[in-house]
């Protein structure tokens, strides 16, 4: 592993991260550190009711409180398109007709201090008419359930290709359905065995340590914002629509992000900060608390019914599935998550027939949105749990059954799709061997399970651009829109540029993002940067390099093929010609910049189910070993072996951090309580009561093994690595629990209560 190709000098090396010194000395600037003279502080009034009509709201007393410069209620939205969202524009900046969950935004205040803002909020009088509440998916889908939206909000269903479709409002509180079908349903008829299981998925909160935060100000007629976002360009477009403001009069700047894990896509703190900045004429900082993060965004809880038909010899034949995602009170990214959960439910196996529906159900709880894994975590949980159920019923080893049915390298995922670009058997064998699967202790409270986490990577139809500028002295600016959210993108992209230019890593700088001049990018999400942006960066670098070589050939009066770029000199045979004097000789003493542009977008393809073929396929292989205490129901994780395939690791240490970080994040939904609701009231939504994994929760037997199989579409064969190892965790552990105590738990998290209940139910 981690063998470095002899031809590579910078790529494949563990160079110190580009952000290492700022982040270890406290010098790194995050949005929370941005400040302006006269800056006001925003606070919002949140609904105490899960579902209520807004009868009246009186903020007149708040407006005259000390230090208050602006108050925003539904009466301050004139001239705006006051609702936003991804496919469906249903989320208001502040409540207009109703509140739909506890924590919904009712009003906002900007004051000179946060304390003054909080004091002013207490003087806002709101009259509510309480409405019946739907706190769960089952309640929301019931025949007589109250609708969160009586009228259909504005929205779209995107175009899909072969076998895929979308629909809206098919039932009570159903805001979106994604469907995928291929092959003949009669395939089920010929199966020797049919398995039908219901799986329930837990609801984690991202718990990004940097809160949602935005600083907004009016710079003349320019809306000027610094914000902690993963998707500044779509955000700019959405703000232009909401505020009816020209897009080129909106400037979005993104400092370092204190993580996001999906949560920081689309509008969060931005609309309120902008609205209050416009109303007050002052810079406004809106920084949420951790408690407010819990009331702003969560993962999707899910119910997954999976029906799978197999032959007696273990051959997989057909799978159908119905998935219900708990979308919370607003649609947010739910349609997109539904698309991914539904599309990923088959897993990387051979099927003759597939028929899957994934529905987004609105409930009176925190809006659910993008979360690392993006529906794939839910799908892998159900799919990889059921494979073990099938194996045990057939008397087969779960590992062997996977080996029998997985896709081959290069085989299309489904008709019209791109080929699988990892050797799945090699990955599974690797983690199983590392964990000692073949010689495992099985039973008597101890057992082992394996799983293959799976997702499509690179997003759908996701364009990205890049620009490379090289100055007279050979300093390189890499400009592209991938945000440094912690994944190491500044480092990885700079390594690629340095490699291609045959120069040192420290020659390359990756400036912070400013939508006024940074090339377009659709967003830092979908494990897309290395495989998408990476290709644009490669193209931009090679174009700039070609211009340098062409220039030098002209100056030296020779053919360009005779020249090589060697750091910032031109090598011609045994001669070395430094570039700076050559450049200044031609362009003058003040010098010049060579620029190159790059672009990447998958081709449109109507034969592909999602209208572009998937750029790459991301996997996380996992093996877990547990000891289960039958008296207490506690699961003791003894080993957790995970592996991702980086194709070619640009920076192996950074890749390791991605694999281990996503695996441990995946533990949250399995061995920790996650978001606990009492009806529609979240009872553990703060940093003290909400438990995420700590260093002391990680078993000594936790290890990641990085694969570099070399089949990725990114530069040098690189593949995505940011989400894969989150995906197999839940199923690998549940499979290990069954191996240990012979009971199958189909509901997450795997709490001691559930383990004990499952033991009781099994009559043991």
């Amino acid at each position, binding site marked *: 592993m981690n063998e470095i190709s002899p031809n590579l000098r910078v790529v494949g090396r*563990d160079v*110190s*991260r580009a*952000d*290492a*010194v*700022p*982040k*270890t*000395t*406290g*010098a*790194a*600037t*995050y949005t*929370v*550190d941005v400040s302006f003279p006269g800056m006001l502080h925003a606070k919002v009034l949140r609904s105490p009711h899960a579902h209520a009509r807004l009868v009246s709201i009186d903020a007149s007393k708040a407006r005259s409180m000390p230090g208050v410069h602006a108050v925003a209620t539904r009466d301050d939205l004139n001239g705006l398109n006051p609702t936003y969202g991804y496919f469906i524009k249903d989320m208001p900046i502040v409540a207009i007709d109703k509140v739909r969950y506890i924590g919904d935004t009712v009003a906002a205040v900007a004051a000179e201090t946060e*304390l003054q803002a909080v004091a002013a909020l207490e003087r806002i009088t709101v009259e509510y008419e309480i409405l019946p509440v739907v706190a769960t998916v089952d309640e929301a889908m019931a025949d007589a359930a109250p609708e969160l939206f009586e009228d259909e909000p504005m929205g779209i269903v995107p175009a899909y290709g072969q076998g895929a479709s979308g629909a809206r409002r098919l039932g009570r509180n159903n805001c979106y359905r994604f469907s995928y079908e291929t092959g003949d349903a009669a395939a089920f008829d010929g199966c020797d065995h049919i398995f039908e299981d219901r799986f329930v998925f837990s609801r984690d909160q*991202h*718990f*990004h*340590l*940097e*809160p949602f935060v935005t600083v907004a100000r009016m710079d003349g007629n320019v809306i000027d914002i610094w914000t902690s976002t993963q998707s500044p360009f779509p955000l700019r477009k959405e703000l232009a629509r909401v505020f009816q403001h020209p897009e080129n009069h909106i400037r979005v700047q993104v400092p*370092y*992000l*204190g*993580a996001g*894990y999906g949560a920081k896509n689309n509008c969060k703190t931005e609309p309120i900060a902008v609205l209050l900045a416009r109303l007050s004429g002052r810079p406004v900082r809106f920084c949420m*608390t*951790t408690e407010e993060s819990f009331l702003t965004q969560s993962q999707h809880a899910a119910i997954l019914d999976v029906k799978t038909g197999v032959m007696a010899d273990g051959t997989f034949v057909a799978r159908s599935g119905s998935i219900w995602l708990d979308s919370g009170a607003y649609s947010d990214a739910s349609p997109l998550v539904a698309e991914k959960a539904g599309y990923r439910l088959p897993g990387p196996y051979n099927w003759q027939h597939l028929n899957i529906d994934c529905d987004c159900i609105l409930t009176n709880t925190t809006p659910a949105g993008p979360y690392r894994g993006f529906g794939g975590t839910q799908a892998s949980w159900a799919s990889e749990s059921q494979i073990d159920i099938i194996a045990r019923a057939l008397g087969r080893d779960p590992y062997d059954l996977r080996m029998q049915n997985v896709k081959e390298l290069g085989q299309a995922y489904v008709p019209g799709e791109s080929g699988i670009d990892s050797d799945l058997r090699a990955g599974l064998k690797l983690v199983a061997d590392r964990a000692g699967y073949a010689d495992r202790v099985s039973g008597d409270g101890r057992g082992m399970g394996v799983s293959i986490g799976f997702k499509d990577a690179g997003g759908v139809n996701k364009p990205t651009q890049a620009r490379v500028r090289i100055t007279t002295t050979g300093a390189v600016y890499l400009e592209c829109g991938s945000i440094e*959210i*912690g*994944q*190491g993108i500044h480092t990885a992209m700079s390594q690629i540029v340095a490699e291609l230019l045959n120069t040192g890593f420290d020659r390359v700088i990756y400036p912070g993002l400013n939508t006024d001049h940074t090339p377009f990018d659709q967003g830092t999400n979908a494990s897309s940067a290395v495989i998408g942006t990476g290709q644009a960066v490669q193209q931009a670098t090679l174009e700039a390099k070609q211009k340098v070589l062409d220039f030098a050939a002209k100056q030296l009066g020779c053919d360009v093929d005779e020249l090589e770029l060697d750091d910032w000199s031109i090598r011609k045979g045994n001669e070395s010609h430094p570039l700076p004097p050559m450049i200044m000789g031609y362009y003058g003493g003040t010098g010049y910049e060579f620029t190159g542009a790059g672009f990447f977008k998958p081709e449109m393809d109507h034969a592909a189910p999602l209208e572009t073929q998937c750029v790459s396929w991301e996997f996380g292989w996992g093996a877990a070993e547990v000891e289960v205490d039958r008296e207490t129901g506690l699961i003791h994780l003894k080993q957790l072996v995970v592996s991702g395939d980086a194709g070619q690791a640009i*920076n192996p*240490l*950074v890749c*390791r*951090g991605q694999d*281990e*970080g*996503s*695996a*441990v*994040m995946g533990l949250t939904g399995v061995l920790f309580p996650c978001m606990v609701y009492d009806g529609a009231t979240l009872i553990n939504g*703060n*940093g*003290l009561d909400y438990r*995420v*994994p*700590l*260093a*002391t*929760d*990680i078993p000594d037997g*936790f290890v990641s093994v990085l694969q570099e199989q070399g089949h990725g579409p990114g530069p040098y064969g690189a593949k995505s690595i940011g989400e894969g190892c989150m995906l197999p965790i839940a199923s690998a552990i549940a499979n290990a629990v069954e191996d240990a105590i012979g009971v199958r738990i189909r509901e997450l998290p795997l709490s001691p209560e559930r383990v004990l209940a499952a033991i009781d139910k099994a009559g043991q």
Partner: protein
Amino acid sequence: MSGEFVFVSCTVNGTAEELHVRPEEMLIDVLRDRLALTGTKLSCDLGACGACTVLLDGKPVSSCGTFAWQADGSDIRTIEGLADANGALDPVQQAFVDNSAFQCGFCTPGMIMLARGLLDHDPAPDKSAIRAWMGANICRCTGYEMIIEAVEKAVLLSEGAENE
């Protein structure tokens, strides 16, 4: 707000500071807003996550849960006070750099101060002691193993420096 102020005299990163603070003002507010030491980060505001960890007389504390007046007469170290005047990193910082023991970096100042506090208390902790100590702070990015290995590395770097 009481309108009354408390006089606080302390040392921050080796510099004597004299401040009039409000009774309800927290140490993190003084560090970030008055002394412009923004490397220390506020996250959970409940003393649970440790992003705001600083050393108060050598002991790690949550600066979000420490009143500014509690710092009277004490010696405070923040992330900005670790590297020397020439920019040479503290062994803990250097180990975090070498081992890529951070991602988004928001927990990192607190993690580094927590580790510094450990090594000041015990210059040669074993891995289980490191794990137990570092279990005080939350990192949501790394999965912790690379942080723990960085602290082990910092022990080696410190020993190496002493032997030079």
